[in-house]
Structures are given as C-alpha cells and as structure tokens.
C-alpha cells in the first residue's frame, strides 16, 4: 500500500509540527519559562511519525518520556501539551504531571509514566481487551534501547506472544540510554533479533526514513489485525539532543552528531518529496506557516491558562 499524496503530506506536516514544537519548548526551557524538565526527540521524527501514522482510529499507543511526537498523528493537541509543560490546569493532567508524562485515552493515547517500559505490559493488556471483545483494534507500545533491558519488556513480549495479542512493540534505538551507549546496554547488534526468542517476527528499520518506518509499522499492524499476533520493530536512529534539557550531552563525540545531522529525517524526507512531481515550495511554505501559528497559539494558550488552584491537590485520587 503506497501512501497517498495526502498521507505523504500529512506525515510531513506532523514531522514539521513535532520539530517546531520541540524547538519552541527548548527555547522556553532555556528561558526558564516552564517549570519542569524536557526530553527532546529531535532527530527521531521519522520514527515517531512513520509509526504512529500507520494506526487507525480506535488503536492505542503507549509512549515513553521522549515520544511526544508520536501523539501528534493521533490527534493530541499541541495546546494541551504546552499547557502541561507550563503546569497549567488546561493540560491533560491538569497540572499534576510534568513534561510529556501525559496522554489522552479518548484519542487512544495512554498516559505516559516514567518507569521504563511499564506500559509494554499495559499495551499488551489493551490488546488483550481488543481480542477479548473481537474488536479490530491494535495497540502499539514505544520504548527506547535502554528500556529493553528491563524485565517488563521481556514479560510483555512473552505474554503477548503466548496469548497471540494484537500489539506492536516498537523500539526506538537511538544509540544511547541517557549516557549509556548500546554496548553497555546489550551484547547484540540488533534488538529486533530478540523477537525470535519469543516466537514472533522482528524487524530492524532505518528510523530516519519515515516511509520505511511507515511501511514496517503497517505490516506489523496488519499482522496484529489479522490475528497473526504481536511483532517487534526496531527503528535505528539517533537522539540529536541531550537526554533532558540540562544534559550537556558531552558523552557523544561531536563527529558522530555531525554525521547524523546529515541524515536528518526531515531534510531527507524533504529531498524525497522534492523529487515528486506534485510537490513544490509553496506547499512547504503553507505548512511552515500553519505550524508556526499552531505553536504560537499553543504558547499563548498555555500562558493565558490558569494555574491549578491549590485546594485541588487532594481531589481525584479515586474515581
């Protein structure tokens, strides 16, 4: 299934939106205008958008701390995300959660927790519910290379495999877990190779190629939808910023970053698009303007929104 022109442009739009949102977030952070931490996924746009865009309404995703961009194609509003960063009551956690530890169940986005990758089993459980009710729905769980070392990763893959659940496990291998490089995290070259140990398909894709990611995810999602069970996708990419806003990121050789800068997924996709006969610079301008406005509106919205009232602190622990 080749993506349509509209789909191609959609993915482009979301990549631009994600990039622009993060750039603004970074600036706000440096200016001390937002109280919490930031975890930027710059350089990983293709992995996020290519995968999340392969889903349909009714499907669910489970992001981790860095995966805000995956929420965009699922309909998460940048206003609401920005309000969360400001700790405003208009954010999806009403000021209770920080950074991108958020979600919106009505849009099929699980709320993010910090403990990695605790939502791997949770996503398997969502898939269990879909199968239980015979629904045509799929769950997709994200995590990074570092998170694959944790027990919950293993338990989720095995449980989903045994129960043949409609879930896609998507690992963004960006070479580092905080400061820890792949070689201190695992002794294998490709995380996708672990899939065989669970009896499910595993596949490594170029995480900077949005169309390759999209295609691989569509295939895995199709597997899930047609009752052939879970699969594992590893997208190889590179985190182009420090782990969090305060990280000087000096444990990665400059040369390596320069190398990866050349593989920038947005530039790369733009080159591809430019090669298509229907694409022209006007389209790009239109999108750039639209994205710029959305980000501006998001900041305005967040800044104009009220902080939560202190008296609310004890409400809502229970339903």
């Amino acid at each position, binding site marked *: 299934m080749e993506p349509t022109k509209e789909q191609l442009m959609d993915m482009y739009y979301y990549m631009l939106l994600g990039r622009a949102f993060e750039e603004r977030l970074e600036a706000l952070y440096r200016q001390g205008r937002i109280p919490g931490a930031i975890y930027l996924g710059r350089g990983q746009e293709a992995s996020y958008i290519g995968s999340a865009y392969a889903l349909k309404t009714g499907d669910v995703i489970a992001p981790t701390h860095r995966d805000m961009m995956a929420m965009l194609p699922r309909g998460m509003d940048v206003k609401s995300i920005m309000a969360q960063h400001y700790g405003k009551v208009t954010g999806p956690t009403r000021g209770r959660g920080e950074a991108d530890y958020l979600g919106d169940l009505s849009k099929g986005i699980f709320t993010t927790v910090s403990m990695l990758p605790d939502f791997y089993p949770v996503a398997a459980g*969502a898939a269990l519910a879909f199968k239980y009710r015979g629904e045509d729905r799929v769950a997709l769980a994200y995590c990074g290379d570092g998170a694959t070392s944790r*027990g919950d990763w293993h338990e989720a893959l095995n449980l989903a495999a045994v129960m043949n659940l409609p879930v896609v496990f998507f690992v963004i291998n960006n070479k580092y877990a905080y400061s820890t490089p792949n070689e201190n995290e695992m002794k294998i070259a490709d995380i996708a190779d672990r899939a065989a140990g669970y009896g499910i398909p595993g596949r490594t894709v170029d995480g900077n190629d949005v169309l390759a990611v999209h295609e691989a995810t569509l295939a895995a999602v199709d597997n899930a939808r047609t009752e052939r069970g879970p699969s594992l996708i590893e997208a190889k990419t590179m985190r182009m910023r420090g782990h969090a806003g305060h990280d000087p990121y000096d444990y990665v050789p400059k040369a390596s970053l320069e190398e990866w800068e050349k593989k920038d997924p947005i530039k790369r996709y733009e080159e591809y698009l430019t090669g298509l006969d229907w694409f022209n610079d006007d389209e790009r301008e239109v999108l750039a303007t639209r994205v710029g406005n959305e980000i501006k509106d998001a900041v305005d919205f967040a800044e104009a929104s009220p902080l939560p009232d202190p008296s609310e602190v004890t409400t809502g622990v229970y339903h």
Partner: protein
Amino acid sequence: MSITEQKAAAGMELQSQESTYLDAINQALREAMEEDSRVFIIGEDVGVYGGAFKVTKGLFDKFGAKRVIDSPLCESGFIGAAVGAALMGLRPVVEVQYADFISCGWDQIVNVAAKIHYRTGDPVPLVIRAPSGAGLRAGPFHSQSPEGWFAHTPGLKVVAPATPFDARGMLKSAILEENPVIFFEHKYLYRRLKERLPKEAYEVPLGKALVRREGNDVTVISYGAMLHKAIEAAEGLAEKSISVEVVDVRTLTPLDRETLVGSVKKTGKAVVVCEDNFSYGVAAELTATISEAAFEYLDGPIVRIAPPDTPIPFSPPLEDAYLPQVVDITAAIEKLARY
C-alpha cells in the same frame, strides 16, 4: 449484632449449605462473571487447575479459557496487562498465587495502577486478589501480610475481610469499584470458617468498619485472621467481667476512622491487633488515628499487638511465637482494663 443477626436484619434468605471463606470468594467471582461479561480472571494456574488454593475452581469449565486466563509466570507482566485491559473497559480480577509474590508486580501496582486516575481521571477498575497471612507453617515466602505497604500507597483501596459473608460481599464491591483494589484473602481462614450465606447476590460496601461485638471497658481493633483471636480473647474476658468491644476494620484504605474512634471514645481504651509486622505498619496507623482523634477520651495508653519485625519463621514453635496469640491479646486487654 452477630453476623447471623446482621443478615437476618437485612432480610436475606440464606443458602441451605454452609460456605467456607474460600467458597464465598468463589461465589463472588462466579456471580460477577455471570453478571458482567467484562469481568475476567488472570493469574498463574487459575484455569484448568483452579488456582493453587482452588479458589477459582469450576470457573474455567464454566467460563472458558477466554475469561479464566492461565498466564505465564510473570506478576509484573500480567498485572500490567490487567491495567491495560481495565483502561480499555474490561474488569480484570488478578490472582497472585501467594500475596508474597505480589512484590514481583510491585511497580506496576504502585507506579502505574495507583497513579493513573489522579493524573488523568480515567478509571482503573482492577482487583488484585492475594492470599496472605501466616499460621500454616509455610515459612517466610508463603506467609506474608503485605497490606501495610499497600495501605500506605495513595490511589489503591486495600481490603481484608474476616468472614465468608464479608469476603463474598466485599469482593463483589471490589469488582464493581472503578479503582484498583488489593484484596487480601487470609489463607488461614480459607477452610476454617463456615457460615450460611445469602442466596441472593449482595455487596458489602468498602470503607466501612464493623463493630463485631459490643462492650464498654476496652475496644479491640483488628481484622483478618487476628480478628477471630481478638473475639476469642474478648469472650474469654467476659467471664472475668471485662466487657470488650471488638471492631473489625475490614477496609484499610479508605479507613473508616469514624467507627474506630467512635468506639474508643466510648470505652476510653484501645488495643490494636494486627498480623502485619509491628513497626511502620497498620498497627501504627490505627494507633496514631486514635491517639489523634480520641486523645481526650483515652484512659490508658493504646496498646499495639503485632508480630515482631522479622521475616516469618517456619518452624511451629517459632511461628507460634511470631504470631499474636489469644493469650497475648487477653493479657494486654486485661492489663489495660485495670489501668
């Protein structure tokens, strides 16, 4: 009001057969599954085998592999999966084979299940059943009473019924809850208690303590298996003309502070009896609650009776020394009564 009186008062028709505490739980599961197709069971060996204690016996035959799921051996995995299913609108009932193994799923409970609603407002209708408690010569890894840890964790409800009637009714309520509930079943009681239960389905609300026995001199507060020792001590003391009120906490979170405090305000004296180990546990909270709210009514110090801060030993003389016994409770009440 005795338990039987209580049921009669509620106008409930009773089954002809007596039910054990274990049967009662099985009945609640069966009823809930019959009433609501969203309810399913997941855990180790709960299916064909009917559970390590046979609590889910017969349910696999009746409801099939889809609704009674034998999970791989992975507490974190299946508790996490249950959270996911709950968020998607099912109503999972997890069985942890022994409460001791709940520690293997700890993070999914305290950081995932317990913290979702406060942040998002989404309900997490999840029940985790955990057979807890000592007295069966089962040693340090099959005898734990971990309710104190969970009671200290905001976002969870924590339940510990002491009778077949409560076990059935409170499990029913737990399954109807929109919040994660940790349901501690005292395994020492499984086959030791019997009573005739109502024919009709019923619920016992969570968060309500119960005065099990009225008295005027001393209030004894307890729950689970220890409650029965407390009652035995109270009855023994009646002969010595000491009138003991016994309150069954039943739900640790939310704690019914009003009922506890109300009783102590009446008697002026309180003994707290828990199976959870002594320090930083349930007994401390019950004591602190009373000392705060009934300070001016107290005619003597609140006495905590709880096992020492050790793992739970296996050998009969050690386990017997570890657990609070009727004589210990009796002695403490008597001493306090004469204070």
